[in-house]
């Protein structure tokens, strides 16, 4: 660090991990066609993005009434994109309790070579069998600590250490609610860096609900993170992920080496991703509420739909979910909460009583 507080990141290498075809599935209510998958995956590969996640928004086992059924199975998506990818690796998300080792084996059999084993930021000990299995398959294995703002830097670093002990080669600070500010990110990455082995990488996964995706990612890099999740034009849950092409532009200005072709990514954002969007993925009233109240980004579209169904503002439902401390995976509690609120407000009669 210079004495004016400036941290020079020139020459730092960062691995960019695209989320458009997994987190982006949330923004598309899981409705992405195989043709669109192929177009996006080919363009990412052509632009030099080294790693891309391809799956249902909930990852392995995500196809469900709880999380929505995608247009195709994960296997159909992988089989569609693999022949069109020359350089990049394909990854997948596995949330224990939803995804299982059987599905991980299938992912591997269909060409997936990297997995983010994800859990709420305090529950790392639900991941040992999946992390060990991924390592046994020889996959690039990431431990992914979601809703990281809900654990202290010290608590989070202990959870990361557990994942490392199970075999994770990289540990992520995952800002699922898009709630964190750069200082929150720095303190958590720093705490992890202090306890993890030097060879264990650190990653950051952001959501742009407070418009902090880029700033938070840079903050993470300053503290030693070397993997950044992002999606082109931000296609992802809530107000989207860290917008990938913007992040790459900022990295170029700062001299951070991503290996990606900025102009190709800009064109891709404009010509492929934005036309795919059903609604503009941006900071609006509801997605800003997620970031402000610290609510899981995936809850956004569910809250909007159920708010319309029961005559409640989506914002009220989201604030109540935050108050009740609901976490990722509890999408069923959105309708439950909306029903209870609608009863209390006299909008519906309580049949069950």
């Amino acid at each position, binding site marked *: 660090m210079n004495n004016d507080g400036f941290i020079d990141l020139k020459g730092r290498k960062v691995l960019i991990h695209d989320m458009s075809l997994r987190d982006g599935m949330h923004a598309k209510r899981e409705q992405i066609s195989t043709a669109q998958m192929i177009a996006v995956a080919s363009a990412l590969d052509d632009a030099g993005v080294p790693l891309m996640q391809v799956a249902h928004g909930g990852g392995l*086992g995500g196809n*469900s*009434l*709880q999380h929505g059924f995608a247009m195709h199975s994960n296997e159909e998506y992988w089989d569609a994109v693999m022949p069109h990818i020359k350089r990049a690796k394909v990854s997948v998300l596995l949330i*224990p*309790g*939803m995804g*299982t*080792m*059987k599905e991980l084996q299938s992912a591997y059999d269909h060409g997936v070579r990297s997995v983010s084993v994800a859990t*709420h930021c*305090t*529950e790392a*000990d*639900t991941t*040992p*069998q*999946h992390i060990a299995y991924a390592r046994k398959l020889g996959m690039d294995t990431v431990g992914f600590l979601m809703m990281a703002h*809900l654990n202290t830097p010290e608590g989070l670093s202990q959870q990361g250490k557990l994942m490392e002990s199970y075999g994770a080669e990289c540990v992520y600070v995952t800002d699922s609610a898009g709630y964190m500010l750069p200082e929150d990110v720095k303190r958590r990455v720093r705490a992890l860096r202090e306890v993890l082995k030097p060879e264990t990488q650190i990653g950051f996964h952001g959501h742009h609900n407070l418009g902090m995706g880029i700033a938070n990612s840079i903050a993470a890099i300053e503290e030693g993170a070397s993997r950044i999740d992002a999606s082109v034009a931000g296609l992802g849950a809530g107000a989207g992920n860290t917008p990938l092409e913007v992040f790459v532009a900022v990295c170029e200005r700062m001299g951070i080496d991503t290996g990606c072709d900025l102009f190709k990514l800009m064109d891709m954002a404009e010509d492929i991703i934005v036309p795919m969007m059903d609604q503009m993925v941006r900071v609006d009233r509801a997605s800003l509420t997620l970031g402000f109240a610290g609510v899981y980004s995936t809850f956004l579209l569910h809250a909007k739909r159920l708010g319309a169904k029961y005559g409640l503002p989506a914002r009220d439902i989201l604030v109540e979910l935050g108050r*009740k*401390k*609901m*976490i*990722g*995976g*509890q999408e*069923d*509690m959105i*309708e*439950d909460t909306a*029903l*209870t609120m609608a009863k209390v407000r006299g909008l519906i009669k309580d*049949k*069950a009583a």
Partner: protein
Amino acid sequence: MKKIRCALIGSGNIGTDLIYKIQRSPLLEPVWMVGIDANSEGLAKAREMGLKTTHEGVDGLLPHVLADNIQIAFDATSAYVHKSNSDKLTALGVMMIDLTPAAIGPLCVPPVNLAEHATQGAMNVNMISCAGQATIPMVRAVSRVQGVKYAEIIASVASKSIGPGTRANLDEFTYTTSNAIEVVGGARKGKALVVVNPAEPPMLMRNTIYCLTDDAPDEAGIIESVQQMITEVQKYVPGYRLVNGPVFDGNKIAIFMEVKGLGDYLPTYAGNLDIMTAAATRTAEMFAEGILAGRIKLKEAA
């Protein structure tokens, strides 16, 4: 009144909570608790509550089985050691109530199929999982009215209510529960999801049950069936409660439940613990009645 003497294997949350449930039973008496760690809190609790204990696993119990006339054993260890525990004990004529996801014996959800098992006299019955006990009665409540092509359940449990064994083996929990939704619940395809929530104060166990019916749902029939089934479960888990629903949306039915525990070993938020131990106790009582009445003859010691 004569009671059937029982052993509890596994000194974690489930095994320890079972002591309370069994001590309260008019038909069962907890005599032994088996652990593998001499310093475990569960074994200390068991001694305090008057049980004999061993920290040498099932092998530490075997020499006492016949002398102490142990006729029913509850296994709350893990899927990986259950078969070996079961083989050793059933060879001595002990009936096994399996609370692990091993599921080597028939699957039992008391209000759905206990009566059937009790007449068949299996030496090993499996209790599936807490999520299974909390949700399969609801799947069955719908499937006994009309065909269910798919049922999906989401169980949310408080972080403090699940022990290290369950945490380290979530896949077994998922597989066993999904299978039981089909085999016992009566859905043609089943899926189970589990979420561990660390909120403080801890949240009560919540369960959501979704069913897709083959034809347009018979709303009145389903509502009545659900309410009857809830009354059945409440006989052994008083805190089993409908919070919202059933919500009918085309052929999709959503039922939102809550389970509040009795607060025996863990506080009331751990409804998941209670529904498992209460179901196991009820199952054992049904077998005990049969044994005491001479209707069920346990296999002679080999």
